[in-house]
């Protein structure tokens, strides 16, 4: 600073914020959902209720992390500031993450994990199906590949919703409680903001309002067959959404763990 211009007097007028590139933001949302949920699922590895589920949940985690890698890599390329997928995953702060709050919630019991997964998987199938026809060819290609995986995921989580809902009294009660607790996190999945509007206008992203009805129908069908019910209304959580960097306290702990090694050795290769 020596010899440079004097530091300007502090101002109470906020500096004009550069409008974030809508496509970058949009890709971060897709990537972060999958990174955070894949991380959560990987916490089950070695601790599942049966060996077959350790394998199945790991499979889903692997798919989601693979998808996250592709979406974040593309986000970094579009952004053009030299950040790759690892820089985005390991060197951003909580408030820079763009995932929905649903995916960052701690695993809870197996029923909670399955209910959370099912709600997300149906969302993923519906959104990826639309994105596979996106006007952005790179995004469409990633979506098409991910859609194949998401269809398998929703079959897995949907089957477990049926088994737990229509299994024993205890399993019914546990997964019902999970849906009751999770339902208020679902409006965020379809709450369109300026980024979604820009993507829709550009022919890149889908009309979320139209997709919500499809999602709702698919979710209700399985939930009813599982002899479960959904809360009548899901009042959206007041305040900003995870899509704009507003998160639950759980995400900070998740990232602290995820990022500790990478951040302890800045510049190192692994």
């Amino acid at each position, binding site marked *: 600073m020596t010899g440079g211009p004097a530091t300007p007097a502090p101002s109470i007028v906020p500096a004009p914020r550069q409008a974030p590139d809508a496509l970058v933001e949009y890709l971060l949302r897709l990537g972060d959902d999958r990174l955070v949920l894949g991380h959560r699922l990987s916490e089950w590895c070695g601790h599942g209720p*049966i060996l077959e589920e350790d394998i199945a949940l790991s499979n889903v985690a692997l798919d989601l992390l693979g998808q996250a890698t592709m979406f974040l890599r593309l986000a970094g390329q579009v952004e053009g500031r030299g950040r790759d997928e690892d820089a985005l995953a390991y060197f951003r702060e909580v408030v820079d993450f763009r995932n929905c709050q649903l995916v960052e919630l701690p695993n809870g019991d197996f029923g909670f994990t399955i209910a959370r997964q099912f709600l997300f998987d149906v969302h993923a199938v519906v959104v990826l199906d639309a994105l596979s026809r996106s006007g952005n060819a790179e995004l469409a290609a990633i979506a098409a590949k991910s859609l194949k995986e998401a269809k398998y995921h929703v079959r897995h989580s949907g089957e477990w919703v049926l088994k737990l809902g229509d299994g024993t009294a205890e399993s019914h009660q546990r997964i019902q409680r999970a849906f009751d607790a999770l339902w208020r996190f679902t409006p965020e999945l379809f709450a369109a903001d300026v980024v979604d509007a820009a993507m829709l206008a550009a022919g890149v992203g889908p009309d979320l309002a139209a997709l919500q009805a499809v999602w709702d129908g698919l979710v209700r069908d399985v939930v009813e067959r599982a002899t479960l019910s959904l809360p009548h209304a899901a009042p959206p959580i007041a305040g900003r959404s995870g899509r704009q960097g507003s998160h639950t306290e759980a995400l900070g702990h998740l990232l602290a763990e995820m990022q500790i090694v990478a951040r302890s050795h800045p510049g190192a*290769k*692994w």
Partner: protein
Amino acid sequence: MTQTRTATPEDPAKVAAFEARIAAVESIEPNDWMPEKYRRQLVRMMSQHAHSEIVGMLPEGNWITRAPSLRRKISLIAKVQDEAGHGLYIYCGAETLGVDRAELIGQLLDGTAKYSSIFNYPTLSWADIGVIGWFVDGAAIVNQTILAKASYGPYARAMIRVCKEENFHKRQGYEIVATLANGTPAQKAMVQDAVDRWWWPSLMMFGPSDTDSPNTAELIRWKVKRKTNDELRQRFVNLTVPQAMAVNLTLPDPDMTFNAETENWEFGAIDWDEFNQVIRGNGPCNRERLEARRKAHDEGAWVREAANAYAAKQRASQASEAA
């Protein structure tokens, strides 16, 4: 589970025919007659092996959430998942001998069954993930390459399949080690520390010295085992020393010397007291490992019950539809 069978004296003619088949290097299959002692040895070995795969998921799983890049995170999950698959596959192999998986898992959880001593050591840094792949999967390959020639068909076939994946794990582990060894000073120190901690426990993986191994003679005669513990341990050391040299890492054994005549790397004395302590349950993580397995089992009970109840309902409704 096998008391009733052991009570019957075995027909010497059948035993002789069995031993002749072994001598002729024939593969013994599940429905073939076999001496009860052979069956029990195999159940013991296969269940210990399967338990080791499952318990072995824990020390490495410990670093999944902290893996330092997305690529490493993905490959570590895939590796731990492979180990679950190995466990499942070997439990299924053991079931061909008339025991069931639930019974074997019960023995693991109540502490009566053994698993490899190596998994009772803690994973303290990311470098441990590389070194475990290199040493522990490397040692498993040395063991399993021989087991793939074992006389019991289902076990031998399981080993062929498992060994392919262990080779991949070892390569991946060594690649992590090489990356760290060529990395920053802190990374290099991290990987040398991991080598120092895992070397001796890895040598112990091959089990007691031949002079103290009660089961070996008979297992070798029946071609359940094809080499002794000490032979396998030596083979592992001979393979590993040059690999350590290639990445400029030091093995923590001042007595290590090359014998030009035998072409063996001769190593120093193994601390068998430590080995025996770990086997008896007094290793650094024995309690934690079993506790983690019990917790997963207990907390999963309601899930397994639900799956069974649901399956029963489905069967009942299918039956009533068919009627």
